[in-house]
């Protein structure tokens, strides 16, 4: 365990519970948009306040769920709160416009100051609480920067001394979300170092670093003590698989690696959002895999699922009702018979081997490896 030093408050739930008012995750509230900020050419931050004026209580890294009605269809999307809980009266989400994505496009095209929408309360477990660490490494890619930005802003607002290296990957320098703010914060904060890793120059004339992707060589060179650091990572699935693999290769302790995965199109911070895909989230980093066909035997539905999407999320997106609770393979509420095909499942005790042998799977932690047929 790292010494608590004075990073203690960031990692304590009590810090966040004294701010704002409780907003249960299942409860709907009306939000009023009070500001729209263009972060890059295709990323905008939308700032809200609650219609009742109540300040927001959450932990940095958590997400809220927007519930929108677009073209007569009710859609829900999870978006990480990118602002810190230390500024609870207004809060922001930061949304990339995804080609073909109904929610992100609607937000970009229609949401203006004064606009109202419905949302349900903060949720998610990708937060610094219960993971005290003094030496930190944040890894993010694309709009996966949002939860880490909330954590960074919160740390600075708490006045905590920090030893943080923030390595962010983007397609081009112009795609770096919060580029100016990060540069300013790095100048102001002694313990913060920001490293941007870009794949291409784009419209930029020059870039003071080699182009490429996150790699072990880059980490060893830029963050030589990375093995001593607790890692928080957020980005598209392909990015995180790569990040996790290279850390494991280097011998980084898995218990000090924390990650948020976001399913295609559900926005950062929204694991298993119950709705239709907003379209491929991060084309630059998304693995080239196409997807598999999922057929539901009882309801006769058929749809395509990326190998990175949980079957639970995919089934929900198809509009099929299915029970679930923990969404991490513990409780077994989403146990379903796999009639055909193969899945990769990473459960945590919610299912017995002999149930697996009989064909049962927990959909919340199952990812298709072939076309599959489910008894739903």
């Amino acid at each position, binding site marked *: 365990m790292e010494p608590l030093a004075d990073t203690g408050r960031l990692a304590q*739930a*009590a810090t966040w*519970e004294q701010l704002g008012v409780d907003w*249960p*995750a*299942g409860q709907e509230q009306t939000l009023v948009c009070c500001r729209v900020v263009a972060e890059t050419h295709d990323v905008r931050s939308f700032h809200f306040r609650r219609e009742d004026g109540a300040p927001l209580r959450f*932990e940095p890294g958590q997400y809220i769920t927007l519930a929108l009605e677009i073209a007569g269809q009710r859609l829900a999307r999870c978006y990480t709160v990118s602002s810190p809980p230390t500024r609870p009266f207004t809060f922001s989400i930061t949304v990339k416009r995804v080609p073909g994505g109904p929610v992100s496009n609607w937000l970009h095209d229609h949401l203006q100051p004064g606009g109202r929408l419905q949302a349900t309360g903060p949720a998610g477990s990708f937060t610094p*609480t*219960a993971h005290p660490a003094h030496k930190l490494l944040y890894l993010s890619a694309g709009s996966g920067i949002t939860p880490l930005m909330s954590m960074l802003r919160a740390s600075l607002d708490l006045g905590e001394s920090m030893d943080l290296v923030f390595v962010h990957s983007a397609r081009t320098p112009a795609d770096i979300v919060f580029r100016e703010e990060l540069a300013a914060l790095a100048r102001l904060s002694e313990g913060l170092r920001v490293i941007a890793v870009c794949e291409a120059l784009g419209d930029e004339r020059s870039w003071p670093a080699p182009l490429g992707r996150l790699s072990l060589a880059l980490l060893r060179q830029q963050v030589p003590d990375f093995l001593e650091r607790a890692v928080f990572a957020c980005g598209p699935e392909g990015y995180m698989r790569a990040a996790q693999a290279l850390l494991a290769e280097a011998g980084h302790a898995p218990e000090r690696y924390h990650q948020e995965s976001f399913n295609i199109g559900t926005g950062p911070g929204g694991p298993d959002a119950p709705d239709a895909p907003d379209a491929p989230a991060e084309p630059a980093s998304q693995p080239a895999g196409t997807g598999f066909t999922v057929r539901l035997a009882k309801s006769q539905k058929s749809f395509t699922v990326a190998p990175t999407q949980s079957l639970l999320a995919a089934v929900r997106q198809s509009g099929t009702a299915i029970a679930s*609770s*923990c969404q*991490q393979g*513990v*409780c*077994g*509420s989403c146990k379903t018979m796999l009639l055909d095909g193969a899945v990769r499942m990473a*459960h945590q*005790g*919610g*299912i*017995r081997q*002999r*149930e697996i042998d009989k064909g049962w799977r927990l959909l919340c932690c199952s990812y298709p490896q072939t076309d599959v047929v489910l008894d739903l």
Partner: protein
Amino acid sequence: MPAISSDKHSLLIRSRQPWHSMPGELFGRQDVFDTDVDVFFYRHWILVGVSADVPEPGDVSTIDIGKASILIVRDDDEQIRAFRNTCRHRGARLKEPGKSTVGMLVCPYHQWTYDLGGALRHTTHMGKDFDAGCRALRPVHLKEVGGLVFVCLADEAPADVALLEQTMAARLAPYGLARAKIAHEAEIIENGNWKLVMENNRECYHCAGTHPELTTSFLAEDFGFCPDGLSEEAQQSVQAYHAKVAASVADWESQGLICAPVEALGPDVATLFRTQRLVMAGHGESQTMDTKVASQKPLGDFPRRDLGDTHLWTHSSWSHVMSDHAVVSYLIPLGPDRTLVRTKWLVHAEAVEGVDYQVDQLTSVWKATNAQDASLVAISQQGTQDPGYVPGPLSRYTETYIEGFAKWYEARLAAHGV
């Protein structure tokens, strides 16, 4: 004349004349029944099943007793544990009665999730400061004795279960019942008070006239007979019985098989039981219609089939363990005049139905016997509730265990302040 129905439970049992049957109100009144359930099923060790009810990790057997319900589970460490079947959130039942297999125990209401050690492993919406550590399922005392499962719902369980455990563990060990499988289970609801079910089980006075199937193998003489007025034929039968028992016991004991009766039946014990290796009639192998084994695969690693019948009585159960199979019966009181009797037939785990045994052949004796006993219990209930019923005398030869049961019953009520 004062209304007798206002008499207290304790007065009713103390009003019983020695060597006479109990007053009818003890079999019919709801308040007496409620006290009985509390004292005899919540505060004493009771047999509620067999290890084979939960053969593999993740198996759950749920038993309802009165308003209480118990989860019996096998954890990943192969230990059998018991818990109260009530969620630590707002109390919902976690499982319906019966058997199931789970990864975790999940409350259907808000999905509070417990592992099979009882620990609360997952909740949603309870906040980071919620202390799951003090919300584990409430444990219930459990003892697995040679493949039989006993529980006690009291906070402090009677310590004298140690004698039962010590006695039966040694006698049952060679049979490997803990690894056996359930070949068949049956439930019947007898229309009588639980004490009438037990009294009926504690005497074989009625056997000759009622149980032609059982008495093919069962020697009624084991549980007493009156030597007066026996026919010459019956006298010869008694002599043959004595000779057979003496020879068999000598034979078994020479091979290290424990035979002697152990009786913990007196008013001084909390945990009532009796055991003995009984000789059987005919071929003496098993309680079947032809007195031969019903399963060709012996329960243990035995060189012989005639190992007799190691029987076990408790205050709510009766079991018979033979070389090829075991029959375990226990009761659950449902109401003053309704009692559930559950029977399980156990055979070797690898015995194959249709090859090593036929279910009919295995179960026919006790299915018939239980049905016959149910009829006897029903007419006893009806008769003792008749306004014309007057308690009658017990046979000092064949009904000594009924007298003993009544005394034990009175003593245990007194011990619990009734």
